[in-house]
């Protein structure tokens, strides 16, 4: 199960944080700080997996943003690495060549996309096309 998903830039500013386990505000800040520290200093040659408390963090860097996913110890790391990539592709398609600024100004839409992709800590839909279509339908409702 996915415990949380965090998007941070290299300075440590959180652009997106979604938690699927309950945490206090202060704990959340602490977690974000620690994950950032873990991930930002790693050599690109190293593996994309780090141990974090009793779980694992699977991360990948896209331009200036770190996408970090915290999962249980028994989960399949390679699969989650793929899912991070899928999410980035969806964002890229939706925003047409997404950049960090898009994510800042349209954060509520990013959350919407995320909620179509992951729910209750598990993958919900694996088709990029399906998710983009759904987002289109939702926009029409507004």
């Amino acid at each position, binding site marked *: 199960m996915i415990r949380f998903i965090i998007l941070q830039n290299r300075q440590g500013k*959180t*652009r*997106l*944080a*979604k*938690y*699927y386990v*309950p*945490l206090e*505000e202060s704990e959340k*800040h602490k977690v974000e700080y620690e994950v950032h520290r873990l991930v930002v200093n790693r050599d690109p*040659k*190293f*593996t*994309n*997996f*780090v141990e974090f408390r009793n779980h694992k963090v699977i991360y990948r860097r896209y331009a200036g943003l770190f996408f970090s996913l915290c999962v249980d110890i028994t989960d*399949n*790391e*390679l*699969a989650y*690495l*793929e*899912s991070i990539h*899928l999410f980035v592709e969806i964002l890229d398609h939706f925003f047409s060549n997404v950049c960090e600024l898009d994510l*800042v*100004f349209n*954060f*509520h839409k990013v*959350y*919407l996309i995320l*909620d179509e992709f992951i*729910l*209750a800590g*598990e*993958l*919900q*839909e*694996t*088709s*990029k*096309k*399906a998710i983009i279509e*759904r987002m289109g*339908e*939702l926009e029409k*409702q*507004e």
Partner: protein
Amino acid sequence: MNPFSAGTRLRDMIRAIRACKTAAEERAVVRKECASIRAAISEDDPDYRHRNLAKLMFIHMLGYPTHFGQMECLKLIASPGFPEKRIGYLGLMLLLDERQEVLMLVTNSIKQDLNQTNQYIVGLALCALGNICSAEMARDLAPEVERLLQFRDPNVRKKAALCTIRIIKKVPDLAENFINPAAALLKEKHHGVLLTGVQLCTEICKVSTEALEHLRKKCIIGLVKVLRDLTNSPYAPEYDISGIADPFLHIRLLRLFHVLGQGDADASDTMSDILAQVATKTETNKNAGNAILYECVATILSVEDNSGLRVLAVNILGRFLSSRDNNIRYVALNMLMRAIALDSQAVQRHRATILECVKDPDASIRKRALELVYLLVNESNVKPLTKELVDYLEVSDPEFKGDLTAKICSIVEKFSPEKIWYIDQMVKVLSQAGNYVKDEVWHALIIVITNAPNLHGYTVRALYKAVQTAGGQETLVRVAVWCIGEYGEMLVGNSGMLDVEERINVTEADAVDVIETGIRCHSSDLTTRAMCLIALLKLSSRYPSCTKRINDIILQQKGSLVLELQQRAIEFNSIIERHEKIRSALVERMPVLDEATYSGRRAGSMPAAVSTSQGALPKMPNGVAKPASAALVDLLDLSSDADQAPSSSGGDYLQDLLGVDLSPASQGINQTEKRGADVLLDLLSIGAPPAQSSSSMLDMLSSGQDNKSALGMFDNLASPSAPSAQASSPVASSSMMDLLDGFGPSPSVPVAETNGPTYPSIVAFESSSLKITYKFSKEPENPQTTIIEAEFVNKSPDIYSNFVFQAAVPKFLQLHMDPASGNTLPASGNGSITQKLRVSNSQHGKKYLVMRMRISYKANDKDVLEEGQVNNFPRGL
């Protein structure tokens, strides 16, 4: 438009915040925004509620507190329109979580939304429920969700499935209701619903055994078909990732097989074909394929035994290991650790590749590989494996050296086939990475050396050679110095040569050179230098021709600023110059240290190592004698041992020392041979809390000699010229204290009781004219305070008048004296004076009592002053 009014658009606010140059500016902007939002909330303005909540969410993401917005979420959720509901639910998920009470208020709104016909609204509600519902909400809304599992729209069905996962995690009892609907989902065609259905079934099986049985019986065949169709399916553009159709679904199905097959042979049989097919047919050049293979291997390794599949799995892992992608190798190493438990033969075949991974530049891979190698070692492959590891030790990174050294030492210790190989390997390790070797390890090495008498010559020569090239490794120097000290004559005389050795020419001067370098070297620490000193003492006996030179070296340390070295230097110098007769007996060969008991001690139990020593007991140099402790010195002066109970063996000396009537309070002594050993045990551990004794033991061993520290103990007794040293002494002196305190309590006191509430009395001071006895008691509530009743007895035939007793204690103690019972002391013990003292120990448990005394009285019209020091307070005061 007025900036920072409720009407500000979200985009403008974000721009304004980003334009701030400093944190203070940003805080000001945020504060103004929050103020206007709060104003809008209190006015209950419906128009901009939507926008305000969006702004509030952004502010929350920046890290500012936003509790005042929680009720707004509820109001928005209750609104009829989709946009408001959407923002409301989003805010709900961001600003609240299941632990908050406010969440309960939403239950009704969610219920209504779940019953709507608009599938988008139902979707919103399911999403919120699935992400943050609490156990009560789960229970309330479970029936709705169950119904929705069969909703006409697939999007709703898949959200309902995931929502159900959360519900059964929160309320496992409800799982039974969902078994049938969940199984029905497995027949879906829509990938999204199928995926979520599979995940739901996996979760249900973990929670409910009934579900597990049901699914095993009914659904496995169907699932196998699904996976087969998926694997064989043609190109599907919608789900294609790197040429594989929907790898996520593959992986989830394999995970479900894992759960279903584990522990059930029939189920495992049914799925073995498809597992083999997946394992062999999947493409491995892209991450997606590797992810599927990885999951497949994990499943194979956990279902019931099918050796063909297992071999397949381990081979896949072997292929992974040779991949260039670090992620793949990491994952393979992880899985191999699991595989080794099941089939270590298969894993052994890949030993070479794993060894390569130990040398990888990536630190996490190296660590995993090293752990795996450690699990792979057995008696047959220990030699080549260790050779590889030791060779690598030379070139490894400093951060890694510590781990590597520890593992090598552990492997060598556990699996070494013969002693000589063990010693060889350890010498190599010490030469490469001596500084990373832990203390227990080189202690163990010394123990093994002493236990291999036929290898003594070989060992000392090997160490001598090693030290010539790798003198910078401190631990190597220590071990070498100890061996040269012990077996010096074998080094020079080339005795005990083995077939594989070459003759080397080492003179006595060369050997002393090595030790001198050890002392002189700037980087040597206290332990090394102390060990060098004692080695020099041994050599002065074994190499008589070098005595003068050795004495000079020792003399140089006399002025050392470190107390331990100064003390040793003075003592040893004294032995060399004035006590030649007993010197050789003093530094006889160390007895064999008992390995079994040593390893028992390492586990924290009694130090029996020294109990087996027999000729190594110190015959005390009667160095400086101080009248105040004359009685004790008498005791220690072995020339007068005729006064003690008759004894013949060395063991009895210590026995006498402990058992003699040092104080009238000590019990009668009935020493037997066995007693000697027991008493020896007591000597070393008596009066000390167990942790203290083992650490003092370790220190004794690490200073290399038990005879040395015993030596130090006694000599220190004879020259109590540095009382402050007692209080804050280096470890050797505290071990001295341990030993001394053995004098106080009688040897019949078993070790465990020394911390009991009653403390035996001691003779604090005894001279030819006066004797002072201390009796102890403690107040029950106040363990730090001891009440001492001092009794003064006049041993001379004269009467003492104007008898005044004064005492001084170190700073951590507080002393309070009551007036004495009198100040005239009748002669010849016909009466006594008593005085009560109260001592409070602020470092109770860490430091022990000491006291200096000054007694003045008038006898025969002469003023007499006597001074002394009390070191033999019982432990625990």
